[in-house]
């Protein structure tokens, strides 16, 4: 451990100790009062947020507050990595804007679905909202730091007229950008952060591969093109062989042992997605607990916190709709053995 990282290590440890453990979640669903849940999600305990977008706006604040704590002692490439990570929220808005413009929605309607821009956002959300056509939106974007992504998305839309093509282009570019920035971090931060990002890429690749191949019926080569070739266990060659397999079971059978075992008991895409998410979160927890790189730990913490906020939202929404506890547990990815059931 570098002595200059001590401050951040301590802060990450304190923040990490406040995260909900996996064991505490069932009790949370069963017993915790709504005020406590709302407080954990940085919301006013007296508020009644029911809409997703209200939750997202508040929880984004929460996440960005933690991010600003992390950014405070960072400079140079380390800072650039986390700032780029936060740009993911901006790209979410960008995709919402493109979707809204494609569907011909009014600016006020699109605005309701936008997340609040992070404080160091590169784009003026209001300016983007003031655009009145996709062409104008792209012209504005091409002059921003997202020029490259915008050109790619414009081309995908012009040539293929598919929203999916534009969105996958944006996602893929973003992840590649994040990966490249992680590679430039100093040792040992680069190795540990890239490893965690690689695990994220593996889980995303499997989920996307199954979706593109077997839900959207894309061909192998086109599916491959939309994947992220930066996986930890699934490198480009493994992906090339996986995309050619004819069905979901064959894909699972051909995965590396670690992932094959993980998905052996699953039978549907939702189960697979949940198992993969759990797998990534386990990896993030391990990094947060045992990692020696403060940057990898910080990245792991942010991922875990984001997931926790999503789960809290699912619990609150499940409760407000009067859903059965089992359904809420399934939504937040908890699988209990029969002996655990109260």
């Amino acid at each position, binding site marked *: 451990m570098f002595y200059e990282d001590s401050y951040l290590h301590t802060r990450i440890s304190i923040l990490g100790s406040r995260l909900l453990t996996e064991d505490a979640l069932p009790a949370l669903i069963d017993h915790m009062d709504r005020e406590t849940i709302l407080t954990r999600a940085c919301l006013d305990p007296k508020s009644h947020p029911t809409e997703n977008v209200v939750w997202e706006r508040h929880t984004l604040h929460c996440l960005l507050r933690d991010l600003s704590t992390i950014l405070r002692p960072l400079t140079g490439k380390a800072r650039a990595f986390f700032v780029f990570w936060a740009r993911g929220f901006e790209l979410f808005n960008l995709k919402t804007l493109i979707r809204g413009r494609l569907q011909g929605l009014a600016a006020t309607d699109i605005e309701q679905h936008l997340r609040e821009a992070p404080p160091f956002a590169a784009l003026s959300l209001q300016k983007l909202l003031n655009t009145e056509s996709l062409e104008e939106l792209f012209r504005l974007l091409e002059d921003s730091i997202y020029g490259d992504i915008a050109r*790619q998305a414009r*081309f995908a839309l012009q040539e293929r007229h598919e929203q999916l093509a534009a969105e996958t282009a944006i996602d893929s570019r973003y992840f590649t950008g994040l990966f490249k920035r992680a590679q430039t971090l100093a040792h040992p931060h680069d190795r540990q952060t890239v490893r965690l990002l690689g695990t994220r890429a593996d889980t995303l690749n499997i989920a996307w591969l199954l979706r593109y191949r077997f839900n959207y019926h894309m061909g192998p*080569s086109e599916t491959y093109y939309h994947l992220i070739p930066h996986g930890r266990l699934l490198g480009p060659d493994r992906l090339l062989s996986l995309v050619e397999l004819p069905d979901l079971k064959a894909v699972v059978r051909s995965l590396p042992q670690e992932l094959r075992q993980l998905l052996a008991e699953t039978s549907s895409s939702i189960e697979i997605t949940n198992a993969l998410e759990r797998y990534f979160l386990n990896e993030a927890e391990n990094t947060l607990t045992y990692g020696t790189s403060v940057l990898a730990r910080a990245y792991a913490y942010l991922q875990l916190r984001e997931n926790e906020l999503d789960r809290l939202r699912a619990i609150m929404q499940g409760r407000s709709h009067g859903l059965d506890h089992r359904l809420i547990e399934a939504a937040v990815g908890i699988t209990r053995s029969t002996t655990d059931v109260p």
Partner: protein
Amino acid sequence: MLTPEAMSQVRILVEQDQVYPTVLCLATFGAFAPDHDDTPPSELVGTPGEDYRRIFNQAESRLEKICGYFPEAMACDTGKLRVIDDGTLATANLKLGDLWSELSQYEEKSRLLDEETREIRQLESTLKNFSNLSIDLGRLSRPQTFLDIRVGITPRNNFDKMQKALGLAGYLVHPYLFAEDQVHLVVTGPRDARTAEAERILKSAAFRDFVIPTELHDAPEVVDARLQKQRARIAADRIELAERIAVWTQTHAPFLRQAAGVLAMAEPFVKVENAAHGEGRLTMISGWVPYAQLDGLREILKRELPAPSLIIARKPTDEEHQRVPSHVRRHPLLASFLTLVKQYGTPRYGEIDPTVLFAVSFVGMFGMMFGDVGHGLTIAAAALVMRRRLGGFTVVAVSAGISSALFGAAYGSIFGFEEIIHPLWRAPLSDPLLMLSIALAWGVVFLLLTDVLYIHNCLAESDIWGALLEVRGLAGIGLYLGILWAAYNGYFLGETGALPIALIISGLALFAVYRWRQVKAPFGERLMVVLVEAFEAVMGNISNTLSFLRVAAFSLNHVALAIAVFALADMLEPAGHWIMVVVGNLFILVLEGAIVTIQVLRLEYYEGFSRFYSGDGKPFLPLRLRGAVYTSGWEKSRSTANHKPNTEHAGGRAGIPG
């Protein structure tokens, strides 16, 4: 005089159809700032004009985008003062939407021309590099029955993934040139069922086909001629586009000016936002008006509005001080000093505006630290010469220069020469200890003055305990005087004495008790906070006082620098001597002048303002009509409207629950 102007909170009740005229009237009045934080009576829950604001914002955005291309169109043609109703605003917005759509198409056309130019450039580079390919180019230009052959470019970022993905579809990718961020390549594959999939990958990868001219392998000069022709066509298209845009501008400029006028008239109502609340036919507009201008407001509303209005005015309560805007007016000579004060913050309502103290102490300290007749007059003269560029700051620079010259006369220094004029007082280096003592004494006076101002600010907010027991309050002054007394006794008499120590202890004890009651935390944390703050109170007073030694230090430094310049000059021949004197003086003027300015600002902000000035006030931003001064009165239809008598109530609720 030293605090922001006294304000009144005003609630104006009007009939719904009189809201726009009232707001326009308030904008011409120019001293009404909307109060967006006022809690309306429970009966008036609606916020009128939401659609109006939405349309205005869209129209404003469109006009701004259009005027981004033609700034001259921004000059608004306001015409007579008039109410812009929903219909007029919507019509202007629609027309602006149409115009922006047309202009946007021109912009898109221009972008396409840029892209075409870029493609031609890339094609030229490709053709130059075709020699790298060992294949028959003639074949590439002809459609093949069994083979799908393409030549083109793709962004470098996409190349690796695209190559592997196309490999799965049975295609071969041959890159023959890596240029900037693009890869030039030949893609070949079987023309079968997978061709469509390959096509989709190529499109996803932003692959652009080059159309290979059939003449390529026969006559390169024909290709050149063809590309030249394309370039000429693009240039002609550009000229045509520019002409069309010029005609477009000429045609629509009058409307754009009118639209700017419409928006200027509509803007005040938009700025009122949620300071207006209404239900049914009644609307209430809340705002802040300088107390001295209340009668003026009543007068103008009575004169201009045809229907009666009800004005409820009251003084802001102590709890409201944080949200009352501060209207600070200063003599034009002090305006630039006020700008420097505002760099730190706007005075809170009721708080002392430190502009006068700042102006006097800034000018005085600068003069003492940079005392030289020649340097001072040079600064003043330079500021007068550059007055257009300096704007309001000319006053700051001239007064600092004059102060410097006056202190220079007292020190007997002119451009560093100390033999030319006799000092009216004494040269700093002749008695450095005296200079340091004076600086210290000035520091004590300055700090005590700031403590007095702090007490005033506490009292203005009815914070009696803060005024008495805070570290800058009476207890703090006792502590500070005790420290000074003890230091004086210790230095001159050899022992501190019991009374000063008693003063220190009682000051600290009072402050500690006050803070102990204020801090809400567990015992240990409370104890820690109080101990640390008490320690900081003692150390802060000492360090702040010693900080003023720099006032004397810089006056000595100024002389020392001049001596250094003359020492160097004396080592040179006559010509070199005078060059050195001039360059050395310039060096002192620019470098030391800048350092002294920074140090004085530091003393003002850190040692001064931080002790008494919160600077977290809200600036007074009254509704105004943008662009022009309106003296022309209302349009005929408005001015001939029947005036009904106004009903006024100062204070009280006058029948409006809330």
